[in-house]
């Protein structure tokens, strides 16, 4: 277990972050390359106002008609993403590691707040999972990947929470926490989770497409 943990927090974490960053960069660059010839629409009707409006209305909790029509989902969806990004990035435990490794770190949340947000995240993930099972049109579309990725995304939070509160065998929960996080990072560039970056491009694309027609961009 110890050697495995050493591996995961040594070469493992380097590999995971490098694959994450390089993978996403390559994906975006490749798409940029083919877009110059095959997506002229994207370049012919550029207007940053359209793009920004298109993006902002889908970043705020109930910004679009479609989210307003399903408010419980919309709020769970919003909280899920805010905590997904906010907790790992501003967690004291993580920043301590950054500080120790590179001498830099970001400001940290008090642990009690991070704790609450973790629970909020897990509850919203449960709402999303339940929705996927209960609503016919979502269930029909859902593939094994959709369920797997949702569970994989939640796994670091579950194991992190357990480790922090020292519930269960500590070494195991901590090792699993790092393992799941690394698997997640590696999968992001190769799956629909690439939407971390691609969301901004596809919304911009629709913004330009609708904007050029004098229509609303969100």
């Amino acid at each position: 277990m110890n050697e495995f943990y050493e591996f995961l927090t040594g070469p493992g974490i380097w590999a995971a972050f490098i694959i994450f960053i390089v993978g996403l960069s390559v994906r975006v660059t490749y798409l940029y390359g083919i877009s110059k010839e095959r997506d002229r629409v994207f370049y012919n009707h550029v207007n940053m106002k359209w793009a920004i409006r298109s993006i902002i209305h889908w970043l705020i909790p109930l910004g679009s008609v479609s989210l307003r029509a399903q408010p419980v989902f919309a709020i769970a969806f919003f909280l899920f993403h805010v905590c997904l990004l906010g907790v790992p990035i501003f967690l004291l435990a993580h920043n301590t590691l950054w500080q120790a490794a590179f001498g830099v770190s970001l400001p940290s949340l008090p642990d009690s707040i991070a704790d609450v947000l973790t629970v909020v995240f897990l509850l919203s993930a449960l709402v999303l999972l339940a929705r996927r099972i209960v609503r016919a049109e979502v269930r029909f579309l859902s593939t094994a990947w959709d369920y797997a990725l949702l569970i994989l995304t939640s796994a670091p939070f579950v194991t992190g929470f357990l480790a922090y509160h020292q519930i269960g065998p500590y070494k195991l929960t901590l090792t699993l926490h790092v393992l799941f996080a690394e698997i997640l990072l590696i999968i992001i560039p190769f799956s629909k989770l690439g939407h971390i970056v691609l969301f901004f491009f596809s919304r911009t694309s629709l913004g330009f497409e609708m904007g050029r027609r004098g229509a609303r961009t969100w």
Partner: protein
Amino acid sequence: MSDALQKPINTKVIKELLDINDSARIRTWLSICASCGLCAESCFFYLAKNKDPKLSPAYKVRTTLKELYRRKGEVDREFLEKCYNIIWGECTTCRRCSLFCPFGIDISIMIATMRGICNSQGIVPEGLLKTSENYRTTGNQMGMSTEDFVETCSWMAEETSEEMRGLEIPIDKQGARIMYTVNAREPMYYPQDIAMAAKIFTVAEEDWTMPSTGWDDTNLAMFAGDKALGGQIVKNMYTKALELGVQAIAITECGHAYRSALFEGPYMLGYRNGKPPIPIVHSVRLFYEYLRDGRIKIDPDKMLKEPVTYQDPCNVSRNGGLWEEGRAIMKYIARDFRDMTPSGIYNHCCGGGGGFIPMGPEFKKRRLESGRIKAEQIKATGAKIVITPCHNCFDQIRDLDKEYNLGIKVVQFKEVITEAMIIPEKFRPVETADEGAQD
């Protein structure tokens, strides 16, 4: 579809088309769809069929284009025929779903791409194939000859000039301000539509002309996925307009004609900058400007008194940005205007537009079923009159009126405006002018 073509599928052509269309956008859309299902509730096909999950836009794309890419084009005729029923029978490319998708995925573009591929294999609705033949031989979907067209225009001019002094329908007038193009149905079946347009242009003192060629602004080839022919049709219009040296091409009250001329045409023709060579203006915008600027004045006593509602043609409102102009016109012509719910950019497709109706009897049952959503919207407003600046919406709503007993009348703006507008003395026929002078 055409039974005549039982040729084996040409996978080489399919692969080529898949490759050309393998764009950043399509790749991105196909890979990031998160199966969230928000698109389902947006689609009137889904809603009308008691929320059948097979009718969610995401599912329609997955079972057609995504599957085709996954199989790298190695498919059989049976697969394409299954796609045929989805991409033409379950979608009008109205684009409402794109407004509901968190990623802004443009499902209609992917459906159109799939149509292009099926079209390349001769798998196209029969009704559209017929019109393609007509477009190729005569430049218009009705197969009308130039002589017949010009004759119809002069006949209308002759008849109508008895009601309105000085009315003319100029053909090929060099240097006019606008070149007015029509839906080929108009000269063929509803020539009075051309007469009404002429009356409006006369009273508004517009400097206009109709062209002897390139006068059909419809583009069913676009709906059929025939990019080359669709481009050619638009090119006829552009070429004539440039030849006549006009300042803009005006589009009759038709939805997809506007979309074709202004937005899709340049891309079908491969214009790098994606813009038409000459400005395009829709009738709704023109009429709005005439009313706003007082070039046309409405007699208050002749305003519509019965409750009126507005059918937003998808290609004029959501995909054309003119939903506010349509409502602004309403203020001048209707006393009791009642908007549908939802309305404007979020209004539902009527189910018949873009080219769905011309696809023929094969699809009639489907569009009457899916049109239930529109019928319910209309019923809920309590309106007795539905105004819609689109020929396909017009036909569909008339059919829905019969199917669902809505008890409504459908009209286009031209009809209401010509009946309610004040005709300045100089345009009134000689006898009335004399009587008028004594008032």
